[in-house]
């Protein structure tokens, strides 16, 4: 359907990813257990955020995304987002990556559903960009990249019609269909029901450009109104509030797309599936053309740290039990990754993809504690919260 989904997908999903990483990495620091050997310093965290943002907003990456193209499949998107998450010294195990992806995606789905007008998807994206700008405000080179990208997005998307925005939104909703992972933050705030579906209110301000329902007007053939009366609406709506700014800077008005995670309540990011997996367990081979797209995209990403041994391993969310569960339904993912390697791509890219695939398959060193300076993963393993089974 829409050929313009990818840039907004990455800005919004990437933005959510950064909110979560920022919260989780700060949480590691504020844990009560004082016996860790190494803790994530503020500098480490900022470095991770900077590296990821620099990769995401790099000219090559954004240029590739801005080309008119269909939305990637779920698998392809996950691969690229995983690569993004690994753009720095941080390494996530598959279970953590799964949870991260679920959180990102459910947050985005919620934002899409609540979006008052399809065009407001841009405002939501700009809320993410505003926050990302804050993360890198001390690094001028990266800040510059973010600004450049923002300019480009404004240029490309401002001329689109409402119909095209709704088509974009519909394309994304189809992509996110049937995902009902329950997130404790959403459940707590009652924006999500226990069955995983979001609560949609029938009260509040109407979107800009819409009138409050309830009025019928009749016109005569010369255009004059000759009768008007009201009907009961079954909801309670108020007039629209002012529109947010579509410029590079400005009051966005809506809070949709802003950071909803706070450092003091890390259990907000717990998720639990109702295990109606959408084809996740079947190895789903990508078409050759999509692999080529992926290859170009990943090839264009600057690799910060080729040496995985010096990367810091992080279990963002998982308990040991979770890891087992995750490895069960990741078996499909392994099969998928080995299919990736079989395809005939050029050598440089093949190496890159093979390396990523290697990160997916549960290599033993990922769960054992490595020696030397990279023992942060070890400590984090020891600091896990309980996942609340709901």
């Amino acid at each position: 359907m829409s050929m313009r989904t990818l840039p907004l997908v990455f800005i919004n999903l990437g933005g959510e990813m950064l909110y979560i990483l920022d919260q989780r990495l700060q949480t590691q620091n504020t844990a009560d257990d004082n016996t860790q050997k190494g803790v994530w310093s503020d500098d480490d965290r900022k470095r991770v955020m900077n590296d990821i943002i620099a990769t995401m907003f790099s000219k090559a990456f954004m240029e590739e995304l801005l080309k008119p193209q269909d939305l990637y499949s779920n698998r392809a998107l996950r691969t690229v987002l995983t690569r993004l998450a690994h753009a720095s010294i941080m390494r996530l195990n598959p279970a953590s990556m799964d949870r991260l992806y679920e959180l990102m995606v459910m947050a985005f789905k919620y934002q899409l559903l609540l979006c008052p007008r399809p065009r407001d998807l841009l405002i939501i994206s700009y809320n993410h960009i505003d926050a990302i700008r804050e993360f890198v405000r001390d690094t001028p080179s990266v800040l510059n990249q973010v600004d450049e990208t923002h300019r480009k997005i404004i240029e490309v998307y401002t001329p689109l019609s409402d119909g095209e925005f709704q088509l974009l939104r519909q394309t994304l909703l189809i992509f996110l269909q049937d995902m009902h992972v329950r997130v404790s933050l959403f459940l707590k705030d009652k924006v999500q029901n226990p069955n995983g579906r979001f609560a949609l209110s029938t009260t509040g301000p109407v979107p800009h450009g819409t009138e409050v329902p309830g009025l019928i007007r009749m016109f005569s053939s010369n255009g004059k109104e000759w009768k008007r009366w009201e009907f009961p609406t079954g909801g309670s709506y108020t007039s629209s509030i002012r529109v947010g700014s579509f410029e590079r800077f400005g009051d966005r008005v809506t809070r949709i797309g802003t950071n909803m995670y706070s450092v003091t309540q890390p259990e907000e990011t717990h998720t639990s599936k109702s295990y109606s997996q959408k084809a996740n367990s079947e190895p789903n081979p990508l078409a050759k053309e999509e692999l080529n797209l992926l290859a170009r995209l990943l090839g264009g990403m600057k690799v910060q740290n080729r040496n995985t041994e010096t990367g810091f391993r992080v279990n963002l969310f998982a308990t040991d039990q979770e890891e087992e569960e995750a490895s069960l339904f990741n078996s499909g993912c392994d099969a998928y990754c080995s299919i990736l390697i079989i395809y005939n791509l050029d050598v440089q890219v093949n190496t890159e993809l093979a390396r990523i695939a290697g990160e997916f398959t549960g290599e033993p060193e990922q769960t054992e504690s490595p020696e030397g300076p990279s023992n942060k993963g070890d400590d984090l393993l020891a600091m896990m919260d309980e996942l609340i089974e709901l």
Partner: protein
Amino acid sequence: MYHKEKSIQMKSSASALYNNLSVLRIAPRSLTYFTVVHANMVNMVSASWDGLNYSHRQLQSKEANVATSSSLIMQAAWCVLPSRDILVLTSQKGIQMYESDGSIMVYWHALDTPETQTAQAVFARGIAAVREKYICVGISSGSMLVFDVPIKGSNITLSEVLEEHKESITDLASECSGSLECIADMVSADDSGNLCVWKSGEDFQLLNKIPDKAIEAFCSSVKLWKGTVVAGYGTGQIRLYEAVTGIVHAEVNAHARWIYSLDIAPFSGLLLSAAEDSLVRVWHLTMTPETNSVEIVHMYNECVTDTQICGAKFCDGDGYAFAVTGYDLSEIIRYTQV
């Protein structure tokens, strides 16, 4: 006025597409067929009137590529012609036509896709059966294809291409009152809210163009009944126009979010509107020939909690029952009059 009946379960959930429900009533067999689009597939359910038998069928988009999203179906609808009923599927690749039970594909029309990828999405959307033998389908470029359908068999031919709209077609509707006196046979709507009114024939004739100067809003659903165009907009408004003149009869601030579906029960003049605001509303249209106007009265509301509705249709010509689909819902919710 209505109460909820037992829902029909589907094999998969409904996608967020306009007019995402089509209903075909087969009186001789005491059956009703329902179709709902899910991404690159169509769920077809056949329900017996006694509520005891349900059978399911799933139709795939032709040239469906499993991995990518480039073969999504935009709409599925039955075209009721005097001699036969045809099920039409419109997708990003083209137009598929089936015998009414979905068992045999009788025709395939591939869309011209540009060699190099452009920013403009390519798809077909908007389906209407017009008079005795035409099926019209809209395209994202704004063109409309007119197909000539024989009484039986698969010798369907492309009769004409109507180039009037400049924006993507959103919906098509044909005169549904059954009256032969009506001059206008079909109305088409596009992305900018422009409406075109047509007379069918060997060559379709443009009778009127109703530009939407006032609100410049997106029109997602249209109906044509007794010479009156009923249009639903992204602003949540419903407007009634006189088809051949374009005169506005009425304006209703009906919904708080985008209207996704409209339907008319031709024998009673009941109108159904459904939107992303979770509400389905039933209205009544009455014609007053003396003043040459049409009046709209609100009858009933139904709130489908926490659901962005994407399809709503009457199940019979009187409006005795209607069915509703919502994004992410795997059921067809039904209501009947008390």
